[in-house]
């Protein structure tokens, strides 16, 4: 802790990693840093984009910031904050808030915002029901989109109808509709989000004033919803475990099985088929959950990769056979939550405060189902459909040699969304004109270059922020969504000067545990987790919750005390520290570590 003020490097001082210049240049022009950007403060959005970005995956940042900006600036008209600018360098997404400082403009916006926000708060339940209908319709639209394909000749059936639109046109139509749907999903995503967080933050602030030493966890527990969709996938795995025992097929489920072989074996016998039917019930829609946060194409869903539910089944089956109750005790959780709310209320000194407390907790409980529930529809279900549709285009382009003889369908994600459209047009032209497409010669070297760039960028750490630190971060959107405050920034600046064996994060669930660290970077690593290990991962979300029965504590790089991981950890009573920033890079697999979930610290005790 030196007295001299420290700052973050200026954007202009960050050099593109040598050899990756063309991969960097391929990102859209409006996402490249320019000299004027040195005058602004930026932070690395490691919460949403912890890995270097595949070029196609930038659509998630783009669509989200288009929608978030529109809602903040022009739909809800937030008084002091507009949207966020985003830039990308070396595959890392930096964002910077746009705040309103002119008092006259703020006053004008306050009036607008008040009318709009009050309308939403007053009609919250109805609008949220309507929102779910909209999301289900949007999902159904995406599911109804056909797989892109090119017949040799226009089918006679459509020909005779006088369709007069050739099959190639459908490629463009499906692609554009899918991209349009993804943008629309992000608009829906932001329809309630800031208002929901705002109501929650208001209660949070009140509690911090009334109870200066209250933990974030305690407030979160008072607000947490009990019926949120996001708990359902785990409940379905438990249900499948129970059915496996009831049907007498539980012996098929052991650690590290070959999932396809198990499914094939089950399909050979009647009771096995019965269980497979149950699996189908669970899969649609509840296995449409991403094993990551849904922001990258390679965050596959349980629907596409059953590793996560299969990793959890043996543990649940053992518990059921041992007579343990694995049901989520909803009634008890609700009772505990209500008791917590009542007990804190009791401590307030004045009737005025009790009245305010009642108002604010009531509002928080009203808005919270959206805050917790929207992710299932947006980041999980829809995003998964979206990336899978793009995969179908990848398959089509691969079939037409666009990725060369060694290519794979996933190579499509090395193209930007605009390049994908151009490749589709190239294919449409070729199909119609009858001459070979140019893509097979053009794309393979580019894909190879970008593949290498992603690997290279992953080796280079990137600064947590760029530019001069502002005196205060009073952008409510940045505070709420990213949890970034002036205090965080100071701690980021201090990073590296402290004990390298001590990591600090948000205290998510209290308790102290020592154990072996299992650093898990993707779903393919989950089979390595042994009973009692401490899970160390970049981001844990509720789709990982089936693993919580196995582990003794959890640590993540990303997330705040309201992150879903924190919520699930509290349900399981597991000590957890989230948002450490560096756990997966600093902690080595197999090391002995101590997690203090009350203090929010992780200590590396000894080497593996």
């Amino acid at each position, binding site marked *: 802790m030196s007295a001299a003020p420290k700052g973050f490097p200026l954007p202009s001082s960050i050099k593109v990693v040598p050899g990756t210049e063309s991969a960097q240049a391929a990102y859209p022009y409006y996402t490249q840093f320019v000299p004027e950007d040195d005058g602004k403060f930026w932070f690395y959005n490691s919460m949403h984009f912890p890995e270097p970005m595949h070029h196609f995956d930038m659509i998630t940042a783009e669509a989200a910031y288009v929608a978030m900006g529109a809602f903040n600036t022009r739909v809800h008209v*937030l*008084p*002091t904050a507009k949207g966020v600018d985003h830039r990308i360098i070396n595959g890392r997404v930096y964002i910077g808030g746009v705040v309103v400082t002119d008092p006259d403009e*703020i006053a004008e916006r*306050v009036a607008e*915002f*008040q009318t709009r*926000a*009050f309308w939403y*708060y007053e009609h919250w339940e109805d609008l949220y029901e309507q929102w779910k209908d909209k999301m289900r319709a949007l999902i159904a639209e995406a599911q109804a989109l056909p797989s892109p394909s090119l017949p040799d000749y226009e089918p006679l059936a459509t020909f005779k109808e006088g369709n007069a639109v050739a099959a190639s046109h459908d490629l463009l139509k499906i692609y554009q509709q899918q991209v349009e749907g993804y943008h629309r999903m992000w608009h829906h995503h932001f329809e309630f989000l800031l208002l929901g967080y*705002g*109501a929650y*933050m*208001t209660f949070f*602030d*009140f509690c911090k*004033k*009334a*109870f*200066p*030493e*209250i*933990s974030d*966890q*305690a407030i979160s*527990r008072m607000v947490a919803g009990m019926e949120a969709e996001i708990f359902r996938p785990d409940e379905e795995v438990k249900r499948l475990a129970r059915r496996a025992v009831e049907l007498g097929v539980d012996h098929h489920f052991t650690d590290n099985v070959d999932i396809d072989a198990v499914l094939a074996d089950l399909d050979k016998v009647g009771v096995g088929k019965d269980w497979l039917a149950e699996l189908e019930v669970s899969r649609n829609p509840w296995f449409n959950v991403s094993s990551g946060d849904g922001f990258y194409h390679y965050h596959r869903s349980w629907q596409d990769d059953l590793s996560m539910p299969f990793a959890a089944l043996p543990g649940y089956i053992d518990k059921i056979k041992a007579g343990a109750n694995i049901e989520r005790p909803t009634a008890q959780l609700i009772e505990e939550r209500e008791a*917590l709310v009542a*007990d*804190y209320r009791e*401590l*307030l*000194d*004045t009737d*005025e*405060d009790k*009245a*305010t407390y009642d*108002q*604010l907790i*009531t*509002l928080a409980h009203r808005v919270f189902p959206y805050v917790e529930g929207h992710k299932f529809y947006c980041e999980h279900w829809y995003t998964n459909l979206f990336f899978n549709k793009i995969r179908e285009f990848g398959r089509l382009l691969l079939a037409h040699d666009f990725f060369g003889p060694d290519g794979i369908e996933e190579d499509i994600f090395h193209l930007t969304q605009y390049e994908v459209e151009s490749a589709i047009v190239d294919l449409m032209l070729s199909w119609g004109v009858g001459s070979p497409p140019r893509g097979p010669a053009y794309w393979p070297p580019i894909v190879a270059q970008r593949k290498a760039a992603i690997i290279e960028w992953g080796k280079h750490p990137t600064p947590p922020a760029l530019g001069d630190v502002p005196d205060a971060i*009073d952008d*409510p959107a940045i505070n709420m969504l990213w949890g970034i405050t002036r205090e965080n920034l100071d701690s980021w600046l201090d990073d590296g000067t402290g004990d390298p064996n001590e990591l600090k994060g948000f*205290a998510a669930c*209290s308790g*102290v545990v020592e154990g072996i660290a299992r650093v898990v970077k993707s779903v393919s690593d989950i089979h390595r987790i042994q009973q009692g290990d401490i899970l160390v991962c970049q981001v844990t979300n509720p789709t990982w919750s089936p693993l919580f029965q196995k582990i003794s504590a959890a640590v993540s790089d990303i997330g705040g005390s309201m992150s879903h991981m924190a919520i699930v950890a509290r349900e399981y009573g597991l000590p957890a520290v989230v948002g450490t920033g560096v756990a997966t890079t600093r902690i080595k697999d197999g090391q002995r570590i101590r997690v*203090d979930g*009350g*203090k929010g610290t992780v200590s590396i005790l000894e080497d593996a």
Partner: protein
Amino acid sequence: MTDSPMSPVAWFADVGIKDRPTVGGKGGSLGELTQAGIAVPPGFVVTTAAFEVFLSALEAKEAIRPLVEALDPDDHAAATVLSEKLRARVMGDPMPPEVETAIISAMRQLCPEGQPVAVRSSATTEDADDASFAGLQDTFLWVLTPEDMAHKVRECWGSLYSVESMTYRRKHGLPEAGVAMAVVVQQMVDALCAGVMFTRSPTTGDKSVITIEGAWGLGSSVVSGEVTPDKWVLGKITAEISARDISDKHARQVPAESGGIIEVENEEPMRSSPCLTDDQLMALRDVGRKVERHYGKAQDIEWALDKAGNVLLLQSRPETVWSQKDAVAKPVTAPVANPMAHVMNIFGGRR
């Protein structure tokens, strides 16, 4: 154990806070806790009645109270001479047999196996809670025999005639007729560890947390500030342990074989190990909540853990610093009819 509070001796189980005028604040509080079913080492109070009988016996020989009342509070030399004289009489003059027999047989009943006791003064007036007065009171630890106990009771009584105590009363114009002293005699815990507990935060006044401080050995090392105690902050409602500061506890106070206490060095790993387990912290929290609920206000508690790991309370008194601030406290947030107006403050940057 049917002695009424006007007897020379009153057992904890028979007294409460309402008996403060005869058993003092400390005695009344320990009685109240005992009656509330909270584990307190057993004991009795040498009541103000005992003191009055004793003082009458002294006064029968030569006046005491008129001499104090005649004292000029600014005449330090005179106060010193008087103090020496009066304390010598309190220590040396015979104790009326009805008092001496009562307290000695009470101790025999309390300590059939010769268990040691703590002897502590227990003042009767509200003013006694005042810091300026509290410091003048006495505590004697690990007193082994009934005879020595009786001697320590005299010492507590004698403290009423210290220079500071008499001068304080004269400055505040307190009539000597109302001045009396009760003395608590309590079986003593050979504590594994001990310390204090506040049922609200001493630093922020937060009522939703319990702060526990403790160190190895007897609690006197913590109360006197000779050892930096371990410190924990617990959620009163949530039971989460939100802070743990384990300190280097270089020494502990333990009973001396011949009575009284001695300080011994702590070796590693003891000195840097937490003196309480999480389960013990939870047990303390439960007791703290129970006492707070019983009194209906935040408490400042002294506790000890016996060698078997049982939590025992040695004292509990109302927290005063923050409760005085509460009396003039305003609502956390000005109330409004529409909760959305609070939300506006968040979005408007007016936090």
